[in-house]
Structure formats: structure tokens, C-alpha cells
């Protein structure tokens, strides 16, 4: 066995320099090309359909998008939606994080709260939204609460998994050496939860903005969801796409400019 492995290894080293492996494209180039491909796919579909009332192509939608941006309306509604997303995101992440860690670390609490978790996990988003509007009123608070209630159970489940996988030996070490509470939180607990936090944040953000849209669709006078509702009633597919696309671009930017660098920083020790 050892001989075979050694010979393989030898061939590998011999091959280096002789065989020039194709250099893979940088990740950012792949990303840009892939998105261009999507644009091409859309353009192709619109070309086949050949009816801009039903499916306008990018050559129609993109100029309307820039017109809407120039008029300022796009920014107003994007901003309103983004602000709701941010508030609901912070509320859901912090509450879910605390609940999840507590449930992961305290089996007795978990036994009591787990049925609630299952209940809220299976409560349809639409029901929560309608009930919040009915109970709290057609206002901003109801919108944020509805979105947060939808998301908290999911964050809790993922953080509970993270808390259950915590390393007991490291906790012992921290206690023996008398690390401070703050030190344990920053250097022992959070680094272990970081991968769970990152994936929760990512899935959380995309889910939250979709729910925010439903909330706006049903009962807000501003925001991407409101505009989509408006143009849906006027059967203006182009404007529906303008607003949907704009927000997807915003989410892509958040992903590339905020989430990915944060995750890279947290993962530095693994790649070193």
C-alpha cells in the first residue's frame, strides 16, 4: 500500500511543470460571468416570448429602472424596505440567538420550549402577518413584529444546534484559567457559533426580505412590496420586475460587501 501511495506521489511531483493545468478563473470573474449568463437567459426568454406586456426583456426593464432611480422613487421605496429588513433582522437574530443558546445549553428549558418552537415553526407567515395587522393595527410595529416572529424560530433552531455542539473542554479550560465572562463570550463562545451565525444570517436575510415584501404587499403605503402590489394591479410586468430586480441587486451588494468579508474574517484561522 505504502509503495503505491509513494509512486503516485512521485508521479504527481514529476508531472508538475510538464503538464500545465488550466488556471481557474478568479472567483469574482466567475461571479460576474454567471450573472451575465442569467441576464442573457432572461433576454433569450423575452426574445422567444416576443411580448413585452408579458415578459419584457432587459433592454426594456433596465432603462425603466434607471428612470425610476433618477426620479428618486426607487430609492424611497428601496430605503423603506431595507429599513424594515434591517430592524426585523436585528430583532430576530438577537432574540433567536439568545433563545437558541439557552435552549441548547439547558436541556430542561429545551424540553419545555421545544413544543412552542415546533408550533411557531409551522405557523404560516401569512397567518402571522394577518394576525399582527389585525391585533396591532396597520402600522410599522405590526410589520416588524410579524417579520420577526416569522424568523425567530428558525434562528433559534440553528443556534440551538450550534450551542449543543459547543466544546466542553474549552469551557473547562476557560473556567480553570479564570477567564472573564466577557472574555469567554468573545473568545470561546462566539467563535464556535460563528459558522452557525453566518449561515443563519445569510438564510435569514433572504427570508426576511421576502416576508417584508408580503407585509408591504398587504398593508403598507411604501416599500418594494407596496410598489409591486400597485403595478400588479395595473398589470405592469415591467415595473414589477424593476422593483424586484433592484432589491435583489441590493441584497447581492450586502452579501458581497458585508456578509462575505465578515465570514472570511471569521474563517481566517481555518484557511491559514
Amino acid at each position, binding site marked *: 500500500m505504502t509503495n503505491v501511495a509513494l509512486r503516485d506521489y512521485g508521479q504527481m511531483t514529476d508531472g508538475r511543470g510538464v503538464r500545465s493545468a488550466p488556471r481557474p478563473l478568479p472567483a469574482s470573474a466567475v461571479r460576474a460571468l454567471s450573472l451575465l449568463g442569467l441576464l442573457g437567459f432572461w433576454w433569450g426568454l423575452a426574445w422567444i416570448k416576443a411580448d413585452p406586456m408579458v415578459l419584457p426583456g432587459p433592454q426594456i426593464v433596465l432603462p425603466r429602472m434607471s428612470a425610476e432611480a433618477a426620479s428618486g422613487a426607487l430609492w424611497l421605496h428601496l430605503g423603506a424596505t431595507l429599513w424594515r429588513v434591517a430592524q426585523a433582522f436585528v430583532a430576530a437574530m438577537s432574540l433567536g440567538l439568545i433563545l437558541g443558546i439557552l435552549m441548547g445549553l439547558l436541556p430542561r428549558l429545551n424540553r419545555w420550549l421545544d413544543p412552542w418552537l415546533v408550533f411557531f415553526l409551522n405557523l404560516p407567515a401569512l397567518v402571522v402577518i394577518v394576525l399582527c395587522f389585525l391585533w396591532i393595527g396597520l402600522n410599522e410595529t405590526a410589520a416588524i413584529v410579524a417579520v420577526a416572529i416569522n424568523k425567530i424560530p428558525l434562528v433559534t433552531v440553528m443556534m440551538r444546534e450550534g450551542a449543543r455542539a459547543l466544546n466542553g473542554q474549552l469551557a*473547562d*479550560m476557560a*473556567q*480553570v*484559567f479564570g*477567564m472573564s465572562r466577557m472574555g469567554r463570550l468573545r*473568545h470561546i463562545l462566539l*467563535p464556535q457559533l460563528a459558522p452557525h451565525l453566518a449561515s443563519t444570517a445569510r438564510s435569514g436575510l433572504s427570508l426576511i426580505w421576502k416576508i417584508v415584501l408580503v407585509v408591504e404587499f398587504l398593508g403598507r403605503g411604501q416599500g418594494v412590496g407596496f410598489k409591486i402590489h400597485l403595478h400588479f394591479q395595473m398589470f405592469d410586468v415591467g415595473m414589477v420586475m424593476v422593483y424586484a430586480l433592484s432589491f435583489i441587486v441590493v441584497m447581492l451588494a450586502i452579501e458581497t460587501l458585508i456578509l462575505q468579508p465578515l465570514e472570511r474574517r471569521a474563517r481566517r*484561522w481555518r484557511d*491559514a
Partner: protein
Amino acid sequence: MSLNVAIRDKSFGSTPVLRDLVFHVARGEVLAVLGPSGVGKSTLLRLIAGLDTDFEGQIRREGRLAMVFQEPTLMPWRSALDNLRLTTGVDAAQAEAALGRVGLAGKGALFPGQLSLGQQRRLSLARAYAARPDILLLDEPFVSLDDALVADMLALTESVIAEQRPATVFVTHSRPEADRLATRQMILGPVLADPCLLSGKHI
């Protein structure tokens, strides 16, 4: 600065593990705790470390505590230097000195995953050294190492203990290791049904 242990009873459920165990470790002394596996050596160390407080009796620790675990037990997401600084509170210069003391000079910026197993063990020892402990607990720190590494680590541990002279409790199942490091040895035996029999005897 010393360690006083008086355990009347430590049980897991209805299974007695340690009973009527009384001893004292003074500064500079190294007490080796020997005995077959499963007899409660690690449990004893957890009690002394304060990691388990569910027992009858009293343990008095005076001064700073440090421990070397069976596994290196390092924070993989912090550099070697930070592993010393964040746990023991020493400044960068002292941490660097502790690294140098165990032969890891210049490796401070590396993450534990970039160190070999032997170097990780040294880092774990450097952490205990940097803490300047009054009480040092060693939980089979040389188990599952190859002979060369054991000899290496033994010599290093011996010189560190000689330099700082903490009250040391050294749990091991290896008689030669105990003979090398310990000033006293204690053999733990299983707790018998008859409570008159001592579970620990001094030799």
C-alpha cells in the same frame, strides 16, 4: 500557598467514586496520583480544579490555578500568542517569553492548527507556565504521545516545575513518569463497600 483536599464522598448517582480522601500538597511538592483507569483520577482533578462542585467535603485552594489537559485544549481561532494572553492575562512580552521558554519562540503569530501536535502540547504547557500558577494540575498530559515526545515534554515540564515551584498534582497511569516528576505518590483504588477502607493510601 498550598492545596488542602478533604473529600468525604463523591458519587455519580449511587456509584461511589471517591471516599474519605484527605491530603495536602505544599508549594514545590509534586504529588503523583496513580491508579487503574476508571478509578476516579480525572474526577479527583476536576474536583480540585473546581470544575465539579457536587461532592461532600472541602477543598481549599490558595493562589492561582493552572492546568495542563490530556488534549492541548487550545482556541484554534486565536493565535498562539493570543492563546496565552487571553487565558492568563499576561501582556505580549510575557507571552512571548513563555513561548520562548517551551521552544516556540517566533511562533506567536501562528494559529494552533499550523503547529504540530508536539508544538501544540508545548503551547498548552506554555499557557500553564505563563499563568505563574501556585497550584498546577496535570491531567495525563503525556498520554498518547510517542516516546521521544514524552521524554521531551517530561524534561520541559520538570524544568518548568523546578523553576516556578507550584503545588502540583500530576495524574498519570505511568509509573516511570511518576517516578521522574513526583516527590510523593498516591495510588487510588476502587471504593469498596466497606466505608472503613480508605480509597487512597500513601506510599
